[in-house]
């Protein structure tokens, strides 16, 4: 244990993901790729409740739903990442079976997933942090934290709060705030 801590200390400017501990991830499929989130960002996984469409929100915001008495915004990451074509809330209600509830001090949101997410322990040695991805300028890739490489799998580890904090969500909703 003390070895580990000293190791961490010896690496300047590195986040804790860099240490050689294993980390618990929640892995879920979006399109054909696998995405991962740190387990401590996830509050729970529930069957997707009925989603109510919210006017004047970006299309990937499917609406709001009642999860244990909390009214939570539901987001379709596949749509946000451009993995699939835009759908309607109606279809989202029919198609997506599970909702990952993500929580921070700031807010709570639900992410739609089609299959039950799995947990996975990965060693930080399998994580690749410095990645250069070719992407078009519309996509902000900052939220990609690392790529986890296992034998035959590749998991994209994302920082969900970076995804949600993006300017985009701010501006789209603030359009409607303008006059208020």
């Amino acid at each position, binding site marked *: 244990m003390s070895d580990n801590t000293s190791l961490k200390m010896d690496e300047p400017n590195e986040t804790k993901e860099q240490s050689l501990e294993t980390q618990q991830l929640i892995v879920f499929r979006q399109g054909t790729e696998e995405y991962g989130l740190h387990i401590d960002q996830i509050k729970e996984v529930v069957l997707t409740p009925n989603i*109510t469409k919210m006017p004047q929100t970006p299309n990937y915001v499917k609406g709001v739903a009642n999860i244990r008495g909390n009214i939570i915004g539901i987001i379709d990451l596949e749509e946000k990442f451009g993995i699939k074509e835009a759908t309607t809330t109606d279809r989202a209600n029919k198609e997506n079976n599970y909702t990952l509830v993500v929580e921070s001090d700031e807010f709570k949101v639900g992410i739609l997933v089609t299959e039950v997410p799995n947990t996975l322990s990965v060693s930080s040695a399998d994580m690749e942090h410095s990645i250069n991805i070719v992407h078009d300028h519309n996509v902000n890739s900052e939220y990609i934290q690392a790529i986890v490489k296992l034998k035959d799998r590749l998991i994209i580890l994302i920082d969900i709060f970076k995804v949600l904090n993006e300017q985009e969500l701010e501006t789209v909703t603030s359009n409607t705030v303008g006059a208020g």
Partner: protein
Amino acid sequence: MKSKDQEYKEIFLAEALENHEELNRLLTLLEKKSDDTKSVNAIFRITHTLKGNAAGMGFQNVADFAHVLEDFFGEVRDGNLALDDAIFTNLFKAVDVLGALINAIKDDGKVQFRGIKTKLEVLLKSVRQETASTKKEDKPIENKTARSATKPKQKPAKKVSKARRPAADLKSEKKSVPDHHAKMVEEGENTQEAPDTKMTFSDLVQVPVRKLDNLLNLVGELVIERDRIIAVNAGNMDSNEYARLNRVSSDLQYSVMDVRLVQVGFLFNKFHRVARDAASLEGKKVSLNLKGTDTEIDRNILQIISDSLIHLIRNAVGHGIETPDERKKAGKPEEGRIVLSAFSESDAVIIEIKDDGTGIDAAAVRDKAIKKGLISAEDARQMSDNDAILMIFEPGFSTMDQVTSISGRGVGMDVVKKALDSIGGNVSVHAELGKGTTFSLRLPSSMAVKGTLLFELGAETYAIPLAYTEAVVSLYKPDLHKVSNGLVATYLDKTISVVFLQDLFALKNWESVYQDKVLHRSFDDLDPQKKLDIIIVSYNGRTIGFVVDKLLQQKEIVEKPLMKPMDRVKIISGVTIMGNGHVCLVFNVAAICNMIFTKNFSSKNMMSYQ
């Protein structure tokens, strides 16, 4: 509903009993450690407070008694009086009697207190005499006042007779009774019956608002759950099955709401100072009158509007009331009058701020509104004066050109409006030039339950607060007319603008409203035979009709706020959960009207005034 006096009395009693407890505790401490100056000081302070409070409430017995105790401990504090066991016995008895006196206020009982009081007074007197004349001998002075003939106290006791008589008694006693070495113990019994030592508890419980909020939330959820269960089982159950559940939960809900009610007087009383300060800054003379201070309102609502009320009062002083010279010229009394009144009207509370100042110059407001680009000149002409005055609530409007320290700091009346919008309240203004202005705020008396009208749009159900809805009408396509970029219809001989809500909701953002024919889309596809359900709402003097797909029913809902980041969608004020567990969005009429009228739409196409 309790009268104000009774409520104050209850509060006094609660405090007094608390003080009494504390006295008991401190006295016990002091007995063990008689040189504890901290305790002595504390007792002195408490008796002093108690005296003041009791005198303020008119409980002269308690006040007098506390006064004696206060004096007594004043001497102890100054070192003129040393405490010994005998004195403690008396002191404890005195505190017991004080407690009995306090309790007697509650049940109007009679307590014999003269004996012990006189005893203390005699003690005091001798101490004072001694310290005055001879250099004091450090010996406790005891006194004998074995007057078994203590008269039962008279109620209601007059201040004068009461204050005098013990003193008279005392004098005669002083002569007959030797100053020193009287035996305290023996006369303890015959002066009065042994005090009742049963524990007393205050009838008031102090509860943090946070706990009440939580309770109200839980009750809200309970009601939602009840509705859900009833809705689910509606088909296969006798409708009476849930009558009891319904009643009990409703009673519970209203009880919790009732607990949260406070009298507006608690807030209103603070405004004397606000008005005074504002007036002295402006060099004006103002008197503030309060009316209906016992009107009850939810504590949180009162908190939310408190700043608005301060603003309105300052405004009344700063803009409404004229300087004494001007007032004299206008033939008014030098002192301006502001009346702050509150009264209940069905389930709303109306608060009025009325001043007898200059009133509001509607023409000036019009000019200013035109200059600031808030409305067009033609519209301004068509507006009635009172409607024009409502423009002062628009963001960025302030009539005073120069900034004073009191009002006109740029934070205008729109702050008031915003606070009201957030709780579903309303404001109206009635102003007569040269005679005065009346602002009338209409507030819900409770935040918990909102009367709403449910309607369907697309596949979703929405709720719109009844506070803003004027009427519901059915029209057909031929009743609507395209006027420029918008649509109009006639309602009660007035021309109002009509908007298809689905057109608004389909917009990605408000800028796109400028695109041609955006608001005609649904209209163009309309079948002339189709009946249109239109909800007519009015907000800040403007009337607009919203076309919805289908009207459902009226329903009392418990509104929950949206969580981040969804709370940025301002046209939705919150949500409620329906019987089937689905989320129903609550329409924010204020925000949507603000958006439509203030900013993005050209006023000519969209606005309509009565």
